[in-house]
């Protein structure tokens, strides 16, 4: 089957191939639309990632607070548990639909929230529960002695996290955070279900309009792969930058 890429240079109204493939100043071409859709994907993903990182860190830290004298989790820790259980046990698609179609109607405070923000909350909160798990795992992967050492030097609980536990925990969880950041890009594709004109929406609509499904899907897939690769490289650069000289993460291996 021969591929015909000229469709990307066609404008989206008359379907005439334009000399200027990006369609500057004229009617938008499919290439222009594709790039715009990519922009939407990046926007949704990056905003959601910010939300997820901030909330995920807070929730993850709360879940590692030491038990009280009676050996029970503190109230904050229990609240954080509820957050994680709630947001990770409902499919992302359902959460996004709820945010978009149900929340603004049931809770009038959200009635005028921009739709992009609703999607970002859906995707961000969902991912925050998973990042919270990773932050918790990262903190718990540190030797218990590290916390004791911080406390023994007179650090308060907050200082122990700030100066001792979190710096190492974040370094340890860079690999899972990388895949979570890549996930958030991929998961942003469900946003199309609620009217965000991102890449998957483009694939569906443009594929249908032009009947050049293969080309459209190939281009969109390629952009997803490029996005994932970019995230991967960025995180690798971060990992390299924060690498601690001489520190080898214990792999549990013996001699």
């Amino acid at each position, binding site marked *: *089957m021969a591929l015909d890429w000229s469709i990307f240079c066609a404008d989206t109204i008359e379907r005439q191939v334009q000399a200027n493939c990006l369609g500057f100043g004229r009617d938008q071409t499919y290439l222009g639309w594709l790039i715009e859709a990519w922009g939407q994907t990046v926007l949704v993903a990056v905003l959601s990632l910010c939300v997820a990182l901030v909330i995920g860190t807070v929730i993850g830290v709360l879940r590692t607070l030491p038990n009280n004298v009676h050996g029970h989790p503190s109230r904050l820790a229990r609240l954080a548990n509820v957050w994680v*259980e*709630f947001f*990770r*046990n*409902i*499919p*992302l*698609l*359902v*959460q996004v*639909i*709820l945010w978009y*179609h*149900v929340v603004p*109607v*049931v*809770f*009038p405070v959200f009635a005028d929230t921009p739709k992009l923000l609703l999607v970002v909350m859906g995707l961000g909160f969902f991912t925050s529960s998973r990042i919270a798990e990773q932050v918790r795992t990262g903190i718990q992967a540190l030797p218990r002695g590290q916390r004791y050492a911080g406390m023994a030097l007179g650090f308060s609980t907050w200082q122990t996290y700030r100066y001792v536990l979190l710096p190492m925990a974040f370094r340890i969880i860079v690999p899972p955070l990388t*895949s979570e950041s*890549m996930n958030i*890009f*991929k*998961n*942003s*594709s*469900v946003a*199309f*279900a609620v009217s965000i004109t991102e890449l*998957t929406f483009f*694939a*569906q609509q443009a*594929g249908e309009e032009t009947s050049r*499904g*293969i080309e459209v*899907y190939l281009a*969109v*897939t390629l952009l*997803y*792969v490029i*996005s*994932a*690769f970019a995230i*991967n490289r960025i995180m690798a650069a971060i990992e390299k930058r924060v690498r601690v000289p001489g520190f080898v993460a214990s*792999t*549990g*291996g*013996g*001699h």
Partner: protein
Amino acid sequence: MMVLDFSFFTWDVFRSYVLGGLWFSLALTVIATLGGIFFGTLLALMRLSGIKSLEMVAAVYVNGMRSIPLLMVLLWFFLLVPLVTGHPIGAEGSAVITFIAFEAAYFSEIMRAGIQSIPRGQVFAGYAMGMSYAQNMKFVILPQAFRNMLPVLMTQTIILFQDTSLVYIITAHDLLHGFTVAGNNLSHPREAYILAALLYFVICYSLSNAVKRLQQKIAIIR
């Protein structure tokens, strides 16, 4: 504030709209988990085989799959593969194939981590007793890797179950789809979405609690 009205959701509605979808979602989850673990383990063994070409193939497959949204993979299999091969696959069939192919990439990473988490000493110990590579894998490494990774494997299965909701894009009849149709036909779409969320939550929460208990049990045996 809108008043929600759940009274439309009777046993009859559940049976005629939702039950079939629930069944499909569960079946898809089980089949994709088993298939995914099988092919995932093969991929993991390829990546750890030390044979450059095998490692390459497996790495490209796994990394490629992991950087494309499931939705796109579903669309690829559903729309385009039949177009290229000339053999149609229905919605249900392509859902099964896609999920196995997609999840194999994820399960392979889990199994790879599992195999690598086995202390090198264990590997040496197996060889030191005269076991061959295959025997060492079969009797020493894989049983431990599976056991260590069981909680993670099950967690991935829960995620997989949630991901089955994405088959709406190829109009397969899954759990969410059942609720959506019921909601549209009976004019209570919002309530139907809420009920869907509730049912997903109950299922996934119970499963993840089961995983937690299992994890504690394994921790004791170790």
